[in-house]
């Protein structure tokens, strides 16, 4: 789009302001802690655990950590998108579990072809995303309340649909993505690669496309976005539905990893994803954050759980440390923003 705008006055054409754009001298406060912080924390944690156990930095161990976090990791993509619009989704884990039960039951008990069952599961999670999005945009209810409600609804539906029984004996194609292949001496899981690929794609789309920037604008200042012509309702609704799609992918990964459709799955993941997003530097107020940060946040939690077990430390310490990290992450984010007012 060109700007049709001619310089007219006598001074305009002859004189151009030639001062080049110069960044101001960065102080420590202005370093992008929101972006650097999570990576720094991860590096420090890895260095520490490597010093405590020679088994930590092996390819095999790190590959396991990635497999352990891949479900929360993919869920966190959707959660990050929603939190960027200043919303939140408390239902992501149980919606994923519902999707997983749909896939498992359709494939095993109804005997449907696996791709059909997979699509049905993703369809269910997208539907919940749509419901969440409509309640937030049309009924104008706060996202916290809406997703609190759909969390309970999804959980109840999962229990009723599955009669609280796990479904096993899944066909091989359903668990195929949990299989590993050899990469330079270690076993890497296809599911891990899928998670990494999804993150890379989503990260660039958020950063480099117009719809991606609109998501940030809506979260940062919805009224401003509306006044510049951005269809705010459409952006928010789209984000919830897209998140639902990622929850469906996470459901497939969950099935592939455990080998069963588990109706009790996903209950702690509701908050685990928010932890990953916060540790990754995304602001709960919306409009700020890097998607890759959520991956780092999820990996940090996995690294601590793995590292502490290798050290023989009680797992309750891991929960304590996660809580401390969350507070540090939010504090670091506020510290780096206080300078710019």
């Amino acid at each position, binding site marked *: 789009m060109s700007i049709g705008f001619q310089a007219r006055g006598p001074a305009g054409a002859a004189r151009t302001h030639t001062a080049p754009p110069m960044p101001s001298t960065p102080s420590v406060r202005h370093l992008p802690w929101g972006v650097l912080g999570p990576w720094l924390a991860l590096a420090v944690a890895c260095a520490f655990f490597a010093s405590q156990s020679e088994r930590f930095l092996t390819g095999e161990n790190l590959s*396991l950590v990635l497999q352990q976090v891949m479900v929360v990791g993919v869920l966190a993509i959707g959660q990050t998108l929603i939190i960027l619009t200043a919303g939140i989704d408390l239902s992501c884990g149980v919606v994923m579990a519902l999707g997983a039960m749909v896939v498992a039951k359709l494939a095993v008990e109804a005997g449907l072809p696996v791709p059909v069952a997979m699509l049905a599961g993703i369809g269910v999670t997208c539907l919940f995303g749509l419901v969440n999005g409509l309640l937030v945009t049309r009924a104008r209810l706060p996202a916290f309340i809406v997703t609190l409600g759909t969390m309970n609804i999804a959980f109840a539906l999962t229990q009723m649909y599955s*009669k609280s*029984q796990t479904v096993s004996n899944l066909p091989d194609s359903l668990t195929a993505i949990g299989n590993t292949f050899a990469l330079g001496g270690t076993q890497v899981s296809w599911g891990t690669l899928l998670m990494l690929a999804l993150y890379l794609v989503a990260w660039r789309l958020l950063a480099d496309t117009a719809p991606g920037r609109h998501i940030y604008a809506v979260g940062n200042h919805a009224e401003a976005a509306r006044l510049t012509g951005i269809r705010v309702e459409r952006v928010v609704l789209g984000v919830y539905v897209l998140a639902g799609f990622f929850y469906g992918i996470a459901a497939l990964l969950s099935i592939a990893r*455990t*080998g069963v459709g588990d109706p*009790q799955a996903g209950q702690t993941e509701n908050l685990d994803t928010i932890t990953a997003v916060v540790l990754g530097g995304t602001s709960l107020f919306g409009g700020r954050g890097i998607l890759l940060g959520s991956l780092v946040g999820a990996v940090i939690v996995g690294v601590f759980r793995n590292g502490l077990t*290798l050290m023989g430390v009680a797992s*309750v310490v891991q929960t304590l440390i996660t809580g401390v990290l969350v507070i540090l992450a939010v504090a670091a984010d506020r510290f780096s923003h206080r300078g710019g007012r």
Partner: protein
Amino acid sequence: MTHSTRRWLLSCIAFAACAASAQTEPVIGLITKTDTNPFFVKMKEGAEAEAKKAGAKLLTAAGKSDGDTAGQIAALENMASAGAKTILITSSGDAIIPTVKKLQAKGVQVIALDSPFDGADALFATDNYKAGMLVGQYVKASLGGKPAKIATLDLFPGHPVGAQRHNGFLKGFGLPAADAKANELSKDPAVVCMSDSYGDIAKGQAAMENCLQKSPDINVVYTINEPAAAGAFNALKKAGKEKDVVIVSVDGGCQGVRDTAAGHIAATSQQYPLKMAAMGVAAGMEYAKTGKKASGYTDTGVTLIAGKPVAGVDSKDTKVGLDLCWGNK
């Protein structure tokens, strides 16, 4: 007499008859931790069947999740005002104790099922310590003297059942361990890894993976329940170690017994929620009829279900296990 007057008279008589019978039919309440865990579903079924047989009216309720004591407290109060003279409850936590005391002062009998709490009139529960001991003895015997490197996949800190099963297992294995009253998990050099599984398959899998990384030569895995055991099996299979490692568990749910029959789990201690419920209803009927309360602790039984029997340890096979299991057959 007009048609409408006759109808009115008939309904009065019917109402009076109902009211009269309602006064003689004992009301018993059952409050479980959740109504989604198949363990409690089986308990509720057992209670309903017994109540029907005995001619009692059964009220049921559950918390929203394990630990939802607020929901259980509300249910206790509601059932008492609905006329329940005996309430059976699987306690989610000690927060219910003051309400229980209040109701007992009003003459309500409150019996603990499965999970003990202080001040209950009686307790009908699995001896979780014994359940752990049985699988511990089984593993010790099946190892036949080989040195053991043990991993325990526990519940989460502070839960009495988690501690009882864990410590019972160590005791049964022949290692020094705390007694059944302790809430803390005992340690021992033979236990090379202790991790929390929260009784969940995915978390059990991650816990097992991490333990294996720490000590690749683990050959015994104790798990708090069968979902955790399923997760442990997944991890071992991925590492190619499922044939070298013995997994034992507690619960005796139908899925778990199936896993035992398939060889994923070597042995599991089966518990009987149905029996707990039946005993509880019987105690309620006794109290209603004779005014005599139940008391003390009654062991509702635990049976070792093993895929392969082992010398010196009493066990039943998986066919028996499937007959008696709770959950979806």
